[in-house]
């Protein structure tokens, strides 16, 4: 077993554990700490797949911005930051649905080759060229969507509506 495969197995184990821990832990602040570890772990998987630009983007946008946004959400909506959530049961039906989804997804894996494939590396400058030529309309759409989202968020939280 090569070093890369061992690294992938370790990263996958950490990712699954932190995702489950984030959803099951009872303090909301601990949830956000777990989800920050999860985002860093996903970024490490991007680096493993030779996509350094995506890895850095994941670190900046998810591990940085989204985590801090979620922390602000917690700070602004409760009086005591470390107060606990009420216990919610695991729920048999959602668990069964999630397991069935997983089984369907894994059953589709049989279609793919089981052997190890070479990861192709791309120069980040090629990616930026591609993003600003072929993918230009999508970037414009993303910018328009973000503008609309800013306007919508300000509308939602503004004072003195009634």
């Amino acid at each position, binding site marked *: 077993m*090569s070093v*890369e*495969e061992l690294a*992938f*197995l370790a990263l996958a184990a950490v990712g*699954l554990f932190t*995702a*489950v821990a*984030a*959803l099951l832990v009872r303090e*909301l602040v601990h*949830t956000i700490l777990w*989800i920050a570890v999860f985002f860093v772990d*996903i970024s490490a*998987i991007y680096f*493993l*797949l*030779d*996509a350094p*630009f995506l890895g850095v*983007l994941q670190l900046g*946008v*998810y591990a940085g911005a*989204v985590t801090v*946004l*979620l922390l602000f*959400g*917690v700070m*602004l*909506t409760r009086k005591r930051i470390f107060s606990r*959530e009420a216990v919610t049961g695991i*729920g048999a039906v959602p*668990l069964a*649905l*999630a397991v069935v*989804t*997983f089984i369907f997804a*894994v059953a*589709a*894996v049989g279609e*793919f080759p*089981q*052997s*190890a*494939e070479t*990861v*192709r590396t*791309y120069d980040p400058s*090629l*990616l930026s060229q*591609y*993003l600003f030529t072929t*993918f230009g309309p999508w*970037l414009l*759409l993303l910018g328009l*969507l*973000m503008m609309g989202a800013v306007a919508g*968020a300000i509308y*939602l*939280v503004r004072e003195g509506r009634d």
Partner: protein
Amino acid sequence: MTALPLVGFIGLSSALFAIGLFGILTRRNFILLLIAIEIAMNAAILNFVYFGAFSGGVGGLTGQAVAVVLIGFAATEVAVGLAIVLALNRLKGTINVAQATDLKL
């Protein structure tokens, strides 16, 4: 030169998506709901990246470019979601999604 089996990656993202789906269906706190959506979204973005990384030609660049756009979409969604959380907290005094029943007939 890195060589990795594609199957493990598909298993990982399927499991992460199933965890996210489970969280969306069971959690009642709006912020936990957003976090579960982010886990499922990350699983989907991972799919684009490694199908790109394992395919030839321009496919790798397309996968990475789609992933860049999707990361932007997901961040926008969290920002609007937290605005809804704040509005809900001011109107109802709670962020429990079971209490947000104003649109119910």
